[in-house]
Structures are given as structure tokens and as C-alpha cells.
């Protein structure tokens, strides 16, 4: 099944890529879309089996790839919860984008090629997430990079698109360099690239040291940081983020699929996958947190000032990726993956919605030229609202919320629950970003759909709702954006105290955890506990909740100093009292909403099943369920505040933004110019690199390497050939002479040897 789920897109790519002419555009569209949809169905089945069911995780070995001494790498598909979650996200979003593209690209000449690239991307991404070793992951990593390059530059007649594609590729090179080094470092440390081998040995190497240039470096930290460098590049974190906004030059479905939902999250996936490594490298985790939090903040500030509808969403993506990273940094891997999933849905929705708007506005992307089109395209309008609300994280605590409500809150709470300086830093940065997120989401909606039309009459007269083939994927994604958080909250970050029967499940791992020195207890138990408690907070009175959270809070305080076993031991009896009520409330909901839900893994332990490791005392997800109420409510308040603010700015008092800009001229300039990152890089790196490159190209390459290397060798070869040609004079006696000389030479040789 996993074979089909992964290789159908490859098959589609091959068919559409090689035989595109023969089967025609429609053939390509059918083949690629159908393949990806089938793959999506299979991945959902896998998700239920492996993620929610109790199937064991497994690897399907396809063939031996490299076998060189001790370096052995397989082509294999690793199916575990982490990978099936990613597979689901990838395949579902990809199917939506495939179908959407049929409508969106209907005016394009090279539909077949576009669909083929999309399928290639999907395959590469699937290879990335199902890799069971780092090299295969690298293969997928580069594969998505290639596909991204091809798709950003898809409109290759546009110079800006070509430049953007190159920029994306080059900037990613920096990150990939780090990743490659990281992989090598891992191989040096563990002697293998197989995840199983690495993870099983990681605790043995906890204090392993490299000696590099005379410095002793903590090996795991170095490896983790190098791997993280790859993640920074791919996931557009601060420093290597400059390519992402430019990548919006690509067609909008591409932005939705690659630059919002899937590829950019590869970095998050990488860190989550390598969680055992990072867990033993606390310094690396701090770096990840700080990077993520800063990115979330900076990207959000830039997003406030942009006018290109796609760029706003792009910066929002960057900002949300920042959230995921600081969640990873505080060891809340489950929360990060949860946010990854929900984000994939609502961000793809936003992008595709934006695409629909752009489509309607005759390829206009500047929000200053939009406005007042809400009534003309009601479906798109609704979808955009759903996406924005999900992004802003709006919901009613304890009853229902959009996807972002659950995941973002979880991330922020986990950051707070980490109870460290960087955790708090991340929290406050996240809250600030949340305000801005809500603000620019509202700004986007209001500027685009409300107010007076700013577009020309011609454009306005052409505005039409998108065809059904474009709207249908929007509905699917909207469903995800609304319900994904609510449905999978328990599974991803659910509390251990969900119900008594769950408690039994947990009892075992806890018991075993007690006796293990390594104390590698899965995060899942804790996370589930937190989540459950959070839910409880929703359904039960706030008073009870505060009690519970207070107790938990204390507990976490303990957990820092005391071994985790204790905290768990404390947790269990305390939680039980609440559990009955919570459980009752939940089961009601489950049965009402969905039959499937009854089978959903109720706790994160059941769900993640060893795919994520968290060291003892680090489980912030569990801890997050017990944070203060204000910590939990603040993100929501921030979101509502931001939305309200945007309403005031753009509907109530439309003159306000300009005044603000005038009042804060310099800060605005800084933000509007994206903190001058591009300019800085251009001045510092690009120009110098070009200058250096020119030196090397002319002096080094052309005059030295080429002259001695390819050109020289080729010329020498030709000259040698000419000489041989000249010897071939055509005169018999020349020939005979050479023969005789040779014979005598040989005779003399042996003659000299004998005497």
C-alpha cells in the first residue's frame, strides 16, 4: 500500500512527462490527478491503520542502494505515525492542488508539463517523508528542491520567475550544504544512516565529542545544528528565508502546495524525525527555539506592510513555520506536527483562495487594486474567511475552534510550559506574532473584499466566481481548516488523563519508564495528558480548570528538578477526578460527529508510538495542559484583538493606516523593505561573491583549470591525434620502417634485459 501511495505520483510524472504529447493535456491531468488522489486514499488508510489503529510501524525495503564497505544504504519506505501524517498531508493537499490546477492553469500552454512537475514534487516529498535513512531523505530533499525550482520558474518567459527560481535554488544550497554535512556528521558518529540504528544508539553517544581544529565539540549538538541548518534553508527560517517571498512568482497552486503546505515544512519534519538526536543536544534545541520565535515575529511584522496578496500569505507562512520550530525547540514535537498539519490545510486554503481571487481579478495581485468584490465571488470570500479565521486561531474555548485555534494555542502553551528563558521568549514573540497575524489576516480580507472597488471598471466587469473544479478543492481544504484541529487534537497532543481506560494504557509505559535509566519516555503520554486537560478546561468550569492547571504547573516546577516518573506519578491520581467528566463529554461528541472518532487514538502515546522521543522531564506538551488560564486565553485574545484592530483600520477608519505610516515612518520603512535582508545579503554576500566568482571564473577557471583541464586536454588530444595522423603518411616504406623499428626495438629490449 505504501508502495502505491509513494510511487503512483512517480508513475504519473513519468507518464505525463514522457508521453505528455501523446496523451494530451486532458490525459495528463487525468493521469496525474487520479494517481495522486488514489495515493491520498491509500495514505489515509495507512493513517488509520498505523496512526490511529494499533499497527506496528514498519519499513518496506525496496532494494539495496549503496553497499560500500560499512556504508550501506537501502531504498526503503518507513511507515510510522510521523510519516503517515506527512503522507496524508502531502497527498491530500496535493490532490486538491492537482484538481485546482486543472482550472487555474486552463489558459496555460504547458498544462501537461505543469501537472508532471506537480506529480514529481509529490513523489519527491513522499520519498522524503518515508525515508528510513538520512540519505534517502536527502534524495527526497533534493528532489523537492528540484521540483520547486522547476515550478517557481514554470513561467520561464518571465525573467523575474527565473530569477526567483534561481534564488530559491541557490539559497537552499546553503541549507543543503549544512544538511549534507549534518548527514556526514551523523555517519561519522553512528557509522550508519539508518534511523533505527541511529535512534537506538543515540543515548550511548550522548557525551560523544568531536575534536575539530583543536576545539572539543559536543558531537550531537554539532550534528543537530548542521541538520537544522538544512531545515532553516528549506523551511525559510530567518537568515535563509529570502527565497520564499520571491518564490511566489510561481503559479499560485505551486505556492499553495510547495511553499505553504508541504515542502517548507520538510524542515519541521526533519527535526521531528531526528528528535532523539535533538533531545540529546539541548543547545541545539535552544537555537531552534530562538530561531523559530524570531522568525515568527519578524515575518509577521513584514506581513503587516506588504501589498501583494500572495506575499502577505507567504510571510504568514514563514511566521507560522517559526511557530512550528519553536514548538520543536521546546520539545513539543507533537504540537509542531499538529500545527504543521492544520497549517497545511488552512494555508493551502488561503493560497488557493488567493489564487481564486487573482484568477477573478485577471491576474491582479496587488491588494491596493482590489476591494469590494465580496459579493461578486461569495464562495471564495467565504473560503478566505475560513482560512483567515483558522490562521488567526479563532475559537470558543471548550466548545469549538478553527484548526489554528487548537494547534497554535497548543504551541504557545507548550512554549510557556517549557518554563525556561527561551520558552518564555518564544511565548511572547508568539503572542506578538499572533496579534500581527490576526491583523494582517483581517487586513487581507478587508482590503481585498471590502471597501470601494479600486480596480478598473474593465477588470471589475470581468470578475467571476471560479469554476467548480477550482472551488471543490477549496471546500475540501476548508473542511480541513475547520475540523482538523478539533478532530485530531487528542491524537496529536491529547492528554494521558483522557479516560480511565487510557490510564491503563499509559500505566505500562510509565512503569517501564520508571525502571529505565535512560528514562526515554515518549512525549506522547505527557502530551495526551496535557491535551486532555485542556479539553477538560473547555468543557468544565474554569474554576476546576484552574485548579487542575495549578496543580500541573506546580508539577512542572518539580519536573525540572525531579525525575519525570514522579511527576507522572503525581499526575495520575490527580487527573482521575476530572477524567470522568471529561471523558463523558468527549465520548458524546465523538459519537455525534463521527463514527471513526471512536477509533481515534485517544492519547498521543497511542498515536505517535515511539516515533518521537522526548527525554524525561522535557515533555512540554503534557505540561502545556496545565499552564495558567491566562496563558491559554492570551493567544485567543491576541487573535481577536488583531482582527478587531484591522477592522478599525480598514473599515471603520480607512485613513488610519496612512497616518500610522506617516507617524512611524522609519519603522514602517524597515518593515516594508523586509528588514533589508535582501539588500544586506546583496551588499554583503552576493556582490562580493560575484566579484570573487568573476576572479575565479576568469583567472582560475578559464585561464588555469580550463587551460590545463578540459580545454587543454581536449586540445592536446586533438594535437596528439593530428600527430598520429601525420605519421600515417600513406607511404609504404614509412609504414614498413615503423614496423621494422618496432621489431628491433622489442628485440633490443629483450636483448638488453638478457645481458
Amino acid at each position, binding site marked *: 500500500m505504501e508502495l502505491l501511495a509513494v510511487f503512483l505520483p512517480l508513475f504519473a510524472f513519468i507518464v505525463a512527462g514522457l508521453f505528455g504529447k501523446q496523451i494530451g493535456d486532458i490525459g495528463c491531468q487525468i493521469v496525474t490527478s487520479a494517481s495522486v488522489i488514489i495515493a491520498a486514499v491509500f495514505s489515509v488508510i495507512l493513517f488509520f491503520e498505523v496512526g490511529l489503529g494499533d499497527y506496528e510501524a514498519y519499513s518496506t525495503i525496496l532494494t539495496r542502494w549503496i553497499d560500500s564497505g560499512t556504508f550501506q544504504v537501502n531504498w526503503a519506505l518507513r511507515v510510522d505515525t510521523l510519516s503517515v501524517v506527512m503522507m496524508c498531508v502531502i497527498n491530500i493537499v496535493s490532490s486538491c492542488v492537482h484538481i485546482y490546477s486543472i482550472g487555474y492553469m486552463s489558459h496555460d500552454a504547458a498544462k501537461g508539463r505543469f501537472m508532471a512537475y506537480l506529480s514529481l514534487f509529490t513523489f519527491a516529498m513522499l520519498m522524503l517523508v518515508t525515508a528510513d535513512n538520512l540519505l534517502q531523505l536527502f534524495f527526497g530533499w533534493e528532489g523537492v528542491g528540484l521540483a520547486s525550482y522547476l515550478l517557481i520558474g514554470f513561467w520561464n518567459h518571465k525573467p523575474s520567475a527565473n530569477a526567483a527560481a534561481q534564488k530559491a535554488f541557490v539559497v537552499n544550497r546553503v541549507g543543503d550544504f549544512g544538511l549534507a554535512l549534518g548527514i556526514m556528521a551523523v555517519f561519522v558518529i553512528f557509522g550508519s544512516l539508518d534511523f533505527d540504528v541511529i535512534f537506538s544508539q543515540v543515548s550511548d553517544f550522548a557525551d560523544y565529542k568531536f575534536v575539530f581544529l583543536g576545539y572539543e565539540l559536543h558531537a550531537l549538538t554539532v550534528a543537530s545544528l548542521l541538520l537544522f541548518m538544512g531545515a532553516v534553508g528549506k523551511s525559510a527560517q530567518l537568515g535563509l528565508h529570502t527565497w520564499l517571498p520571491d518564490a511566489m512568482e510561481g503559479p499560485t497552486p505551486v505556492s499553495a502546495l510547495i511553499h505553504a503546505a508541504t515542502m517548507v515544512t520538510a524542515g519541521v519534519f526533519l527535526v521531528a524525525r531526528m528528535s532523539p538526536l535533538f533531545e540529546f543536544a539541548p543547545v541545539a534545541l535552544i537555537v531552534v527555539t530562538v530561531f523559530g520565535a524570531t522568525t515568527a515575529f519578524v515575518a509577521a511584522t513584514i506581513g503587516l506592510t506588504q501589498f501583494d496578496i500572495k506575499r502577505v500569505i507567504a510571510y504568514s507562512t514563514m511566521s507560522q513555520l517559526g511557530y512550528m520550530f519553536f514548538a520543536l525547540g521546546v520539545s513539543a514535537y507533537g504540537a509542531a506536527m499538529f500545527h504543521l498539519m492544520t497549517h497545511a490545510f488552512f494555508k493551502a486554503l488561503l493560497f488557493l483562495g488567493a489564487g481564486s481571487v487573482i484568477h477573478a481579478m485577471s491576474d491582479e495581485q496587488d491588494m491596493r487594486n482590489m476591494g469590494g468584490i465580496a459579493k461578486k465571488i461569495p464562495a471564495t470570500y467565504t473560503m478566505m474567511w475560513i482560512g483567515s479565521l483558522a490562521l488567526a486561531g479563532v475559537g470558543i474555548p471548550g466548545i469549538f475552534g478553527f484548526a489554528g485555534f487548537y494547534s497554535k494555542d497548543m504551541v504557545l502553551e507548550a512554549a510557556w510550559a517549557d518554563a525556561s528563558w527561551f520558552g518564555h521568549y518564544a511565548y511572547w514573540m508568539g503572542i506578538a506574532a499572533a496579534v500581527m497575524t490576526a491583523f494582517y489576516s483581517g487586513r487581507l480580507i478587508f482590503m481585498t473584499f471590502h471597501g470601494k472597488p479600486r480596480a478598473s471598471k474593465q477588470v471589475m466587469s470581468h470578475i467571476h466566481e471560479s469554476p467548480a473544479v477550482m472551488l471543490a478543492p477549496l471546500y475540501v481544504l476548508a473542511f480541513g481548516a475547520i475540523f482538523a484541529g478539533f478532530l485530531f487534537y487528542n491524537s496529536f497532543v491529547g492528554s494521558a488523563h483522557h479516560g480511565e481506560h487510557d490510564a491503563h494504557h499509559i500505566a505500562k509505559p510509565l512503569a517501564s519508564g520508571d525502571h529505565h535509566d535512560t528514562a526515554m519516555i515518549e512525549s506522547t503520554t505527557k502530551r495526551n495528558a496535557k491535551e486532555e486537560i485542556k479539553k477538560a478546561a473547555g468543557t468544565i468550569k474554569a474554576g476546576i480548570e484552574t485548579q487542575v492547571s495549578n496543580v500541573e504547573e506546580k508539577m512542572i516546577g518539580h519536573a525540572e528538578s525531579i525525575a519525570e516518573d514522579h511527576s507522572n506519578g503525581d499526575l495520575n491520581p490527580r487527573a482521575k477526578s476530572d477524567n470522568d467528566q471529561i471523558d463523558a463529554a468527549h465520548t458524546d461528541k465523538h459519537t455525534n460527529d463521527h463514527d471513526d472518532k471512536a477509533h481515534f487514538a485517544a492519547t498521543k502515546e497511542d498515536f505517535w508510538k515511539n516515533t518521537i522521543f522526548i527525554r524525561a522531564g522535557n515533555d512540554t506538551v503534557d505540561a502545556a495542559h496545565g499552564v495558567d488560564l491566562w496563558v491559554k486565553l492570551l493567544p485567543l485574545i491576541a487573535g481577536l484583538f488583531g482582527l478587531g484592530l484591522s477592522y478599525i483600520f480598514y473599515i471603520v477608519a480607512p485613513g488610519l493606516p496612512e497616518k500610522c505610516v506617516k507617524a512611524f515612518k522609519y519603522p514602517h520603512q524597515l518593515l516594508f523593505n523586509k528588514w533589508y535582508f535582501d539588500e544586506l545579503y546583496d551588499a554583503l554576500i552576493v556582490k562580493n561573491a560575484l566579484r570573487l566568482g568573476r576572479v575565479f571564473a576568469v583567472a582560475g577557471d578559464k585561464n588555469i583549470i580550463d587551460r590545463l583541464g578540459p580545454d587543454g586536454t581536449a586540445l592536446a*588530444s*586533438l594535437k*596528439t*591525434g*593530428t600527430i*598520429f*595522423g601525420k*605519421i*600515417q603518411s*600513406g607511404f*609504404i616504406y*614509412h*609504414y*614498413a620502417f*615503423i*614496423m*621494422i*623499428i*618496432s*621489431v628491433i626495438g*622489442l*628485440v633490443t*629490449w*629483450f*636483448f638488453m634485459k*638478457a645481458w
Partner: protein
Amino acid sequence: MLDFNLIPILPEIFLAFTAMGLLIVGVSGGNKSTDIICWAAVLSCLMAIFLLFGISWQRTTVLNDMFIIDQFGGFMKLIILLGMIASIALSVKYLYQEQMIRFEYPVLMLMACVGMMLMVSAHNLLGLYMALELQSLSLYVLAAFRRNSYKSAEAGTKYFVLGALSSGLILFGISLVYGFTGSINFSVIQTSLSNEGAANIGAIIGMVFLLSGLAFKISAVPFHMWTPDVYQGAPTSVTAFFAIVPKVAAFALIIRLLYEPFAPLMEQWSQIILFLSVASMTVGAFAALVQDNLKRLLAYSSIGNMGYALIGIVAGNEAGVSAVIIYLFIYMFMTAGTFGVILCLRRGGIASEKISDLGGLSLTNPALAYAMAILMFSMSGLPPLAGFFGKLFVFQAAIDGELYALAIYGVITTVIAAYYYLRIIKVMFFDDPVDTLDKDIPFARRAVIFVSVIFVLGFIIKPNLLVSSSQSAASAITAPQGLAVKKTIKEPPQAAAAGDRPSSTEAAATVTGAQDK
């Protein structure tokens, strides 16, 4: 006293009589009957193959120890006969197209074939020389066959004069060997040499002369000078024949000579062969870069290929000999196909042989262009085509024989040589088309091209068919002599003999092993 058992020699006798019979048919039927005679010649080669399979390939010598049949000889004769069939089939239509239709043509080819088969089976220096002359004389005439063309006549003359020189070298070598070992019989020479070993400098010098003369026949550098001129000047069908078959026979002769009578001198002859191999690879790679005539280019290509094949002999183990046989087999198929394509290059009834004439072939005649492209890729040694495996086995044998530098050099020259093969592909696929080719490609030519392309493509599917038979052929020639070979190299004769036998089987095992993977 005299063993008059003629059964092992039956295929040769049959072919000789057929040739005479066909000559009579030709004389009475005139030149009109040429095509019938050609097909009859093909048929007789097929018959000879049947006869060959009919006789026992157990090592036997007959006619006063002058003729030997063994697995090696049998297999090489099979290759020769297959090559004969291909080259006669390629020729038929060409003779008509070029107005050189004469019934002697197939007769001469058959006589050359008899000569070559006798060469493979020679077990005596005198028989060797006579067989060689029989073959050479037929080839001289064939080279000059289009007597109205100056080029053809020049080719024939050059080939003849230089060939006579090489015959002189061989004869002089034979006389030295005879003088210093006291016999012209292979077994006796071997015994004599294994007693005296390297001390017999006279025999070594004799061997040098002998090998030089034979190197001429396989056009190994520096005895290759005739090759480009003759290949270019001779009628194309004859060139195809030259490139395909006589090399195999001469190689078989060299292998037999080196592994039977001169086996004790392995240390010495491997130096000569090494020199020839390196020189051939060099010239083959470089000189072809500047050629613009396809036939001339292929002449250098064949020189280079002979260099690669020689690597297998230098390796001096069973795997090496087996690799040579495989290499020659594959080379024969590729060359036959390539010449088949070249023979098809005709515009308005005139043959063209410039590389530029291939321009845009992919547009004007895609099937031919793709066939040629596959063959060229194979020639340049790209996996998974057959040409790659030929080189792989040879290089592997060299590495088994610890000749790392030689193997590396071989790879380097392969890379250089790839340039001119790929250039042909480039011209065919990326250059502007010249006029369209004549469309009527005779059936036989199609068949040869088709078979060779299929072979090149399909070799990877079942390489063991060829590999295992070539191994048994190689072991037939190396195994009984292996004892003597090692004796001279290693000091304690008995111990070495006992100790070294497994190494050759081991080498063979690695080849099989590579196949199984």
C-alpha cells in the same frame, strides 16, 4: 605412425570443397550467378557450423600433431563462422550496388575462412604459417577487389607488401624458434622452453618476431599502419569483413601460441603484449579524434578495441582469456551492425562514408539513426549495453591480474575514445540533415543490423550464455598449460603448479560472480 583421422578437420575440408564447387558453378554460370553463390556460401558456413557442433570438442590432435581441436578452437571457429555469415550477408547487395559483382568474391571469402579456421587449429609453426598465408592471400585479393578503383588497388598493394613483410617477420621468428628449441611442434616447443625457460634468449627473440608479425594481423600498434589506409581504400563490404572476422582468428592464434608453446615465457611475452596493448589503446583513442571518414575512424576504433582485448591476454589468467573471447564476440557483433549501417549510407546510388553525411539522420531515417546510436553507445562502453560488459570483463581480468595501471589507462582511453563515438551520435541527432538516403535497404543488411542491435541491447539479460561458454573455452587453453606457465614464474615448480591452479578457477569465479549480481 600417421593419424589420418580427418573428422576433426571436417568443417574446414567441407568449406574448402564447397569453395571449389562454387567456383565451378561460378565459372559456368558467370557473374550473374554471384548472388546464388553468395547465399550458397552463407549456407555452407551454416553447414560448417553444424559440422562443427557435430564433431567432438575434446582436445585432440591429428595429422601428425599438426591440427588440434579443443573447446577453445571450437568456440573460436564458431565465432569466425558467425562473422563470416554476417559479412557475406552484408556484401551481397553491395557487390551489385558498386558494380563489382564477380563470383570469385564469395569463393575468396570462403577460402579466407578456411585459412582462418586452420589458423585457430594450428598446432605447429609450419601449419600456422601456411594457414596464415592462405587467409592473408585471400584478404589481399579482396582488398583490391574493386580493381577499377585506385584506392582499392592501393589498399590491396599496401596490404600485400606490408603483409609480406609481416610474413617475413613471422618466418624469421619461426626459424629462430626452430633453431633454438629444435622443433616446430607446439607441445615440443613448450617442453623445451619449460626446461630452459628464460635462458633461451634465441627463442625469446624468435617469439618477438613471431608476435610482431601476428600483431600486424590484428593491427596492433605499432604494426597497425596499414589499417586505416586499407580500411578506407578497400570496398566497404570487404572492410566490414576485415574488421569482423580475421581479427578473431588472429587473436585465437596469438592466444594459442602464447598459452601453448610460449606459455613458459609468459613473463616475457606479457611485456610485449602490454606494450602493444597500451600503444593500441593510445593510437586508437587519439588518432580517431581527427578523422572525418567513417571507415578510417572505424579503423582506428578497431585498433583501439584490439588494444582493450589485448589487456585480457596481458592479465595472463583464465579470466583474462575468457574476457578476450567475450570481448571479441561482442566486438564482432557491434562492428557487424555498425558496418551494416555504413553500408546503408547511399545517396542516389553513391556510397557516402563521411561522418558529415550522417547529419540529421535521426530525421531522415530515424530507425537507422537509433540503431547506429545504440551501437555507438555500446562501442563507447556505456552500460547497460554489451560493449560495456566487454570492457568490464577485460578490465576486471586486468585487476585480477593486479594490473591496476593498465586498467586505469584503459578506462582513460575509453573516455577519450567515447568522444568520437558520441560525435557520430551528435552529428546524427543534432546536425542539419543532408539529403535523404536511399530508402531501399536490403533484407540481409536489415537483418544483420537488427540482430546486432538486439544482441547489444539484450546481452545484459542473459550474459551467462556467452560468459560460461567462453570460460570453458578459456579453461581449455589455459588449464593444461597452466602448470607449465606458472613453473617458469615461480621458483619451486611443483608447489607452484599445485598452488596456482585454484587461482585461475578463482578468477573465473569472480567473473561469474559479477554476472550473477
